[in-house]
């Protein structure tokens, strides 16, 4: 019985990896000799040259830096803001705390499409359109509801005597939050950070709507633009760009898989 399970899983797993294999093999082909006729066979190894080409050709290099900023700064702020909200509601026993929680969490229930146009409109008016600052702010706001959700759940599991003991020691609420609650929650904080960083890194819609220039535009949006602009011979360059765009999140995920499963379990779905 077990050997059948192993066999099924290995076969299915290999099958699942085929598209990734095709991506890497064809992204590594020399665009000068590239033909779509022999997709399955690896011919040459031109991957790094292709990535360099993609970065130079389409402003991908500028996008990488911008996206890196968004994917680090926004989730970082969001995790802190979400933790503060969770702390206020659970540890400080905020009046109507649950209502405020619903207000914050409700932000995640609506499709992003509902906010695109007004944001585009408002951003154009206040000069935040096509700026890195504007992108950071919107990615932060989008990441807050989930963060508050997990942190509120997490803090519910922390014994209130911890808080009381700190109060007896004369600590201020700010000190209790920074010195006690944040460290206790570090694993949950990192789990949320990883999830939200991945989300921001992979976002297309906000990038399409709120940015234009190479140095503001998120990387995925740039890739989408490349895909429709280039074709034929440059296909291997586009595929190389897709490898570049995908690599950070794949590596992040593989490195944190165990931890990530644990963090999610802590968040208690």
């Amino acid at each position, binding site marked *: 019985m077990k050997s059948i399970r192993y066999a099924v899983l290995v076969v299915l797993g290999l099958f699942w990896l085929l598209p990734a294999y095709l991506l890497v093999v064809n992204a590594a082909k020399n665009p000068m000799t590239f033909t779509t006729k022999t997709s*399955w066979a690896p011919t040459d190894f031109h991957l790094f040259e292709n990535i360099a080409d993609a970065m130079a050709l389409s402003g991908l290099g500028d996008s990488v830096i911008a996206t890196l900023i968004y994917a680090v700064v926004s989730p970082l702020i969001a995790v802190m803001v979400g933790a503060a909200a969770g702390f206020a509601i659970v540890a400080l*026993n905020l009046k109507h705390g649950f209502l405020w929680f619903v207000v914050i969490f409700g932000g995640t229930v*609506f499709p992003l499409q*509902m906010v695109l146009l007004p944001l585009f409109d408002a951003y154009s008016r206040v000069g935040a359109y096509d700026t890195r600052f504007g992108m950071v702010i919107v990615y932060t706001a989008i990441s807050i509801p989930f963060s508050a959700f997990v942190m509120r759940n997490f803090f519910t599991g922390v014994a209130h005597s911890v808080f009381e003991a700190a109060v007896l020691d004369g600590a201020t609420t700010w000190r209790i939050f920074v010195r006690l609650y944040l460290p206790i929650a570090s694993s949950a904080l990192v789990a949320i950070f990883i999830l939200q960083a*991945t989300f921001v890194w992979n976002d297309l819609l906000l990038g399409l709507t709120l940015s234009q220039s190479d140095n503001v535009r998120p990387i995925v949006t740039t890739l989408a633009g490349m895909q429709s602009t280039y074709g034929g011979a440059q296909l291997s360059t586009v595929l190389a760009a897709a490898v570049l765009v995908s690599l950070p999140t794949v590596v992040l995920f593989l490195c944190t898989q165990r931890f990530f499963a644990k963090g999610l379990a802590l968040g208690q779905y």
Partner: protein
Amino acid sequence: MTTTETRTAADVRSPHPTTPSHPPKSPYEWSARGFVAPGVILVAVLLYLPLLWTVYLSFTRYNGLGSPEWVGLENYVEMFADAGFLTSAANTLLWVIGTLVVPVGIGLGIALLTWNLAGGIWLRLPFLIPYALSGIGVGVIWSFILSSGGALDQALAVVGITDPPRWLLDAPLNTVVMIFASAWQGVGVNALLFTIGLQSIPKEPLEAARIDGAGGFRLFGSVLWPMLRPLTAVVVGLSIVASLKTFDIVWAMTKGGPGTVSETLALTMYKETFVNSDYGLGSAVAVFLTVVTLLASVLYLRQQLSPKREF
């Protein structure tokens, strides 16, 4: 440290379930407001205000110039009369059903297969890799595979199929293959969630069922499936909500085409608004999408907010 402080600290203890619903007044009220404020303000300004504005715009005619002109339900009437909108609503429904059946089903299968298996974490890895990719990344790969004469057609030619279907050009086939592309990406996370669920099942009922002679499908049907139900509700809820918003993969693979035959509601909204500059109609589509999403979310939220979660 004074006695007063000691007493107030005790008062903060979260209310016991049997005490009246009104919690004792917290001495930290102002401090707590300060902690919750940044989250509430950011969410209110960047999510709720725009949301209300979109609802308003859906009752107006507006092309971004001048000011919106109130037209009542005109946009909604126009929307439901539009064949393109109906196609896109039908495609979205297909996405919801497809996403429920394919990635959730396979994900559950993989979780069950790797459950209690040595090295299960490694066997799940191939399925998790695509999950880390962006929708556009997935779209780029699968357009390459499914294009006419692409990798799939070449593989089919080897087994003698020289006249393969036009994967991305004919409806509804293009939507179906895109659902599979998206399933390729989504299976891993579903498997991961189901695995977490399986691991949290207490050992005793399982042992009891095994001693009673239940195994394989019977064990699954009578013990595992019922115990996984809360988690299944979450996975299903998440899938429905995510599939309603499908945008990236379709944008990368067909841009909704040829014409509009593979559009989803999310794509129609984007095109009406940012390509055709018909802000009113685009907003109406967004509102419709939201209402549907909210209705679908009820299942999910009910699970999250059920009393036993102890809010």
